[in-house]
C-alpha cells in the first residue's frame, strides 16, 4: 500500500499512482487494485485521497459555474450558446428576460447570433446539455470589452487563493475582469495599454501555471512593467 510518486510529480495516463486502498479523486481511475492517472497533471496525495490536478483538460460544465459564451443560433424559445464545452448550452427565454410572456417577442432583439453573454449554469438537462440563465447580478449581454482564453484547468491559478492573483491584476492594470469557469475571460480596460498588460499576464499564467511561485513571478513582472513605464 503505497504512493508510487512524490507529491506534485508530473504524471501521465497509465502511470500507477497508488497500490492499495485509498479514496480516488479527480482524473484517476482504479482497476485491479491499482489507481491510475487519466490525464496529464500533478499528482496530489492528500488526506487519504489521491487525485491529479490536470494540466490539460477541456471544460467540464457543472451547475453553478459562471461562464462566458457566444450565441451561435436561435431556436423557438431559446438561444444556443457556445461555452467551449463538449456540447453547446441552452438559454431559454424565461431565463433571459424577467417578464411575462408576450406573443410579439422578437428574440434577436433581446440577443442575436454573435452576441456575447455572461451566464450561470443553472442546470444540466437529461442529455447533459448545460442550461444557462442570464438573470442575476453581473449576468447578461456583454456590450464592452473583449474575451481571451485560458485552459479551463488553469482558471484557479488566475483567481489565486482567495482571489489574490486576479485582485493583483485588477489593481495593477485597472482593467475590469470577469472570469468564466469555461476558460473565457472578459477584459475591459480604460485604455489599450492596460488591456495589453492584462492579456500578457494571462498568457504568462497559461505557460507557467504548473511551476510554483507563480504569484510572486507575476507580481515581479507587473512591477517591472511599471518601472519601465516610469522610465
Amino acid at each position, binding site marked *: 500500500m503505497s504512493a508510487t510518486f512524490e507529491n506534485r510529480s508530473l504524471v501521465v495516463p497509465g502511470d500507477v499512482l497508488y497500490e492499495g486502498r485509498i479514496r480516488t479523486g479527480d482524473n484517476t481511475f482504479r482497476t485491479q487494485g491499482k489507481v491510475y492517472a487519466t490525464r496529464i497533471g500533478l499528482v496530489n496525495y492528500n488526506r487519504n485521497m489521491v487525485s491529479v490536478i490536470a494540466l490539460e483538460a477541456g471544460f467540464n460544465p457543472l451547475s453553478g459555474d459562471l461562464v462566458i459564451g*457566444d450565441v451561435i443560433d436561435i431556436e423557438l424559445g431559446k438561444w444556443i450558446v457556445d461555452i467551449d464545452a463538449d456540447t453547446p448550452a441552452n438559454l431559454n427565454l424565461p431565463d433571459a428576460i424577467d417578464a411575462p410572456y408576450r406573443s410579439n417577442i422578437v428574440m434577436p432583439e433581446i440577443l442575436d447570433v454573435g452576441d456575447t453573454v455572461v451566464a450561470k449554469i443553472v442546470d444540466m438537462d437529461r442529455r447533459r446539455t448545460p442550461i444557462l440563465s442570464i438573470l442575476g447580478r453581473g449576468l447578461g449581454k456583454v456590450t464592452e*470589452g473583449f474575451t481571451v482564453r485560458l485552459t479551463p484547468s488553469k482558471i484557479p491559478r488566475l483567481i489565486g487563493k482567495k482571489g489574490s492573483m486576479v485582485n493583483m491584476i485588477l489593481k495593477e492594470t485597472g482593467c475590469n475582469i470577469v472570469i468564466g469557469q469555461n476558460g473565457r475571460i472578459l477584459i475591459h480596460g480604460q485604455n*489599450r495599454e492596460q488591456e495589453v498588460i492584462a492579456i500578457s499576464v494571462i498568457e504568462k499564467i497559461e505557460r507557467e501555471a504548473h511551476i510554483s511561485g507563480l504569484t510572486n513571478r507575476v507580481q515581479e513582472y507587473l512591477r517591472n512593467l511599471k518601472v519601465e513605464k516610469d522610465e
Partner: protein
Amino acid sequence: MSSKYGVVSRLKKKKITEVIASGKRMDGRSLEDYRDIQLRTGVLEKSEGSAEVFLGKTRVLVGVKVGTGTPFEDTPDKGVLMCNAEFSPIAHPSFEPGPPDENAIELARVVDRGLRSAEILDFEKLCLIPGKVVYMVHVDVHVLNYDGNLIDSSALAAIAALKTTKHKVYKVKDGEIELTDKKVELTVRKEPIAVTMLKIGNSLVVDPSADEEDIMDTRLTITVDEEGNICTIQKTGSEGLTQEELKIMMKMASDKSEMMRKKLSETK
C-alpha cells in the same frame, strides 16, 4: 473563418475595428507590418523541393514533386506545372475534412497564376518527347495551421521550394525516356511575391490575421515580380475599393514584396 461555428462575435468585431481605427493591430503591429516570417527549405527528403513557412502562427508546407507525364494537347512541346492546395483539418477547428472547398481552390489558383504569369519556368526546356512525354512539376500546398493570410505564406513557400528543387534527369533514347543518374536544379527565372491587404472600415492593413479576415470588408492580393511587374491580382470580399485605395495598396505591395524577397534570398 476563425470561429468554430462560423459565427463572428460582435464584441470581437467591435474591438478589432476600434483598435485598427486607432492605428494599431490586436497583436501590437502597425497597420503596415508583417508578422514574424520563418522560412525553411529542404524540409522533406522524398520531395524534389520543399519549403515550410511560418507567418505568425499560420503554417504552410509546400512540396514540389517532379515526374514525367503526357503534355496537354494544346501545348505538346511544353512541360506542365500544376498547383494544388489542401486545407488540412488540423489547421483549424472549423476546417472540415473533404475535397478542397472554394477557399482551397482559390488559394491554389492564385498561387498558380502568380507563378505562371511571371513565367518562372522555361516550359520548352521541360519537354522530353514532344507530344508524348514531358516533365510534370507538381506544387502541393499543405496548410498545417491557419491564422490568416494563407496566400502570401503559400506563395512564398512555393517559390522557395521551386528555387531549391533538384530533380532526376531523363534522357531520350530510341523514342523512349530513360532515367539517368544525374540530378539537376530546376531553373526558376523569376521571384513573384504575393502581398495581401484588407480593408477594414476606413483602414488598410497588410498581412491579415484570422480574426481580421473574419471581419474584413474586402481583401486584395497583388503579386509582384522583382522587376516591379504585377503578375496577378485577386480581389475577394463584398465591399468595393476606391481608386485612391488601390493606388495605396499597389505601393504597399511593391514595398512589402521587396521585404519578402530579401527573406527569400537569406534562406538557401
